[in-house]
């Protein structure tokens, strides 16, 4: 067991995991339509290789990477391309180009989908990196950063530790929990493949102590492998953020933006990512499906689905028994950092770990009151920032001061706004400052 270090800030939130934590993963099946956005990841959008009328097979490459930081997109099932058109992107909140696929129900495999190796030892480091890029693997914890980029750090940044993130600190979500409980050996297989591809010798599986079943399953699964350790982290939001995880497990702090974990010799990947990597090595299956928790008081039977990327939100909610009453919000992701949807025809994307449905009665419209400077946001901030001042500077337009208070370091975890007794929209104020500071920096750079 790894000795933990001191973490900073964070809050205790109602976990609500029990709604779906014992629901076995079930296949969500085929919807009538799949919508595959070309931009489901951090970086440049992929570029479409198919056009309306084309037939595709499960696992076939339908959009290829553009540039170094990008991720390929594959057809999740066989069928016909209905259109390549703009659709409403649930996460980006605007129209984005998407490939719309009509499944034919046959689910024929593309010939590119073939097993690569049955053991991590049987495949080379270079082949693993190439495979991660080929299958369009991105971080499945939510940020959707292309994994292949992480696996190839610059030579002057040696990596000594790979953390497998099974923290899942967002309330309600249980996708990571279930995959560790049900497929611990595949998760470990994928983790070892990721470690090999990055050339890292030490791996630590990190799980919050509110998942005893997953802890036991993973403890058993890592036993044969001396290079793997287990870290059981006390439950506290947002310990699953990679910066927070690195701090509490290794006692290191990632430098401020544009600092990355690799600057302190660490790579962090989600357990879902490791599982997808295992599927790619063992079966050759690209990233065309993922585990999605559909939960919340607002659905009748909270479930964990193995769902094809591009499945409409409405389809998954129906599959979970539909709404349990008047619906308030449908959140893509967790309730702390997720996006509340305005259109349920939107599809899930690679980074969608769950859908949380809240009943109308759970949503309180609370009046925003003046800040009373209670300092709760300061104690809650896991980045050690002063949300109270950043937001005040942002609200009154003092961008330079907001920048001095390190607005750009904010990870938008929502702890400050959760804690605020005056119900002030602190995250929004800080995000606004960040956007305006970024715009200003761009304008300055353009002048030069």
């Amino acid at each position: 067991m790894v000795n933990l270090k001191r973490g900073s800030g964070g809050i205790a939130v109602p976990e609500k995991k029990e709604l779906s934590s014992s629901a076995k993963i079930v296949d969500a099946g085929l919807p009538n339509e799949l919508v595959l956005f070309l931009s489901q990841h951090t970086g440049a959008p992929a570029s479409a290789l198919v056009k309306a009328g084309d037939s595709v097979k499960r696992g076939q490459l339908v959009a290829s990477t553009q540039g170094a930081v990008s991720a390929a997109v594959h057809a999740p099932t066989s069928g016909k391309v209905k259109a390549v058109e703009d659709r409403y992107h649930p996460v980006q909140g605007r129209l984005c180009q998407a490939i719309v696929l009509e499944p034919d129900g046959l689910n024929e495999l593309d010939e590119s989908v073939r097993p690569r190796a049955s053991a991590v030892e049987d495949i080379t480091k270079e082949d693993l990196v190439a495979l991660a890029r080929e299958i369009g693997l991105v971080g499945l914890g939510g940020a959707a950063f292309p994994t292949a980029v992480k696996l190839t750090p610059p030579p002057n940044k040696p990596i000594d530790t790979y953390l497998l993130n099974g923290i899942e600190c967002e309330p309600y979500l249980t996708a990571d929990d279930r995959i560790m409980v049900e497929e611990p050996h595949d998760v470990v297989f994928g983790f070892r493949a990721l470690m090999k591809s990055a050339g890292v010798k030490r791996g630590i599986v990190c799980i919050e102590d509110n998942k005893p079943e997953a802890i036991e399953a993973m403890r058993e699964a890592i036993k044969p492998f001396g290079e793997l350790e287990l870290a059981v982290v006390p439950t506290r939001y947002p310990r699953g953020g990679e910066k927070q995880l690195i701090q509490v497990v290794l006692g290191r702090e990632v430098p401020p933006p544009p600092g990355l974990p690799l600057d302190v010799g660490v790579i962090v990947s989600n357990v879902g990512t490791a599982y997808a990597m295992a599927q790619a090595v063992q079966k050759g299956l690209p990233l065309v499906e993922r585990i999605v928790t559909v939960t919340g008081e607002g659905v009748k039977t909270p479930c964990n689905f193995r769902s094809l990327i591009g499945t409409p939100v409405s389809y998954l909610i129906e599959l979970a028994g539909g709404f349990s009453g008047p619906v308030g919000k449908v959140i893509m992701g967790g309730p702390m950092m997720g996006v509340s949807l305005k259109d349920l025809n939107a599809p899930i994307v690679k980074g969608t770990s769950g859908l949380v449905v809240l009943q109308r009665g759970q949503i309180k419209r609370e009046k925003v009151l003046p800040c009373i400077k209670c300092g709760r946001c300061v104690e809650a901030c896991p980045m050690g920032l002063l949300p109270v001042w950043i937001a005040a500077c942002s609200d009154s337009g003092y961008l330079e001061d907001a920048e001095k208070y390190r607005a750009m370091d904010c990870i938008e975890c929502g702890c400050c706004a959760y804690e605020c007794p005056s119900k002030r929209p602190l995250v929004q104020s800080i995000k606004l400052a960040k956007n305006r500071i970024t715009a200003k920096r761009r304008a300055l750079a353009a002048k030069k």
Partner: protein
Amino acid sequence: MGEKLIVTPSPHIKSPRTVKGVMLGVVISLLPACVGAVVLFGMNALLILITSVVSAVVAEALWQRATKQEITVGDFSAVITGLLLAMTLPPGVPLYVPAVGSVFAIVIAKQIFGGLGSNFVNPALAGRAFVLAAWPMSVAGAWLNPLTHDAVSSPTPLAVLKGGGTNIPGLWDLLIGNRTGSLGETSIILLLLGGLFLLVTKIIDWRTPVGFLGTLFVGTWIFGKPGALFQGDGLSAILLGGAVLGAFFMATDYVTSPVTPKGRLIFGIGAGLVTLLIRLWGGYPEGVTYGILFMNLMTPIIDRFVVPKYYGYEHDARARKSAEGKR
């Protein structure tokens, strides 16, 4: 699925804690000591408490109405101001003193600067400082004997100490409040009960009262006895006067104290120091009011310079240094 969906930015869940809830918690924490005051000093104390609270609430409502603002007396903050002001007054004070003091506290110290959240000094203490200047004889002299409720002309135990005397009540009397003094400051046990409630419910930070009382205790112990070091009576310094009331209920006022934990410790220590200076070497027997008011004024400076340890910067400095070394 034609349902209308609510769309807002994240986070989509919020803590149940509200401003009103916090303020109500403070009111509840003050009630035991208020009841104690009425038991000790009788109807006078009750009338002063009521006058002060009603005056504060009415003043806030009228001012907000006159200036066409939303009336926010329902948030209980004016109730707290009224209660705290009353608790700092002698039990024999005429009723116009709390009435005028509350109006000053609410209108001049709080509303003129923008109301809740924008005032820079503790309104109750500003009100007390005002009435102390306006009616020095009644505010610093209208003491009553606990339980018998007779007017007494003898000075408070703190003033006795100040005059070099040693004839002060015993420890038990000090703890239950059997001494002359301001009506809400004497019942130490009941005040500590309220303070404990605020600590347990995480409404206040322990750093402020601990810094305040600790500084007062240690400082008095070291310098309290003229001509001899380390022989002062630190415990009496805490139990006499308004130190406990001030440390738990006034120095901890959110709006007028720093936002960082470290800042609050500095605030507490600073308020304790100023109180100590006034008590030992100043002209007044008591210094809690000015100790806290002084630190209220220091709060913007503390907030400017005392910042938390930002995540990622220590490493950054080291990394930069090593990178520069390599160049």
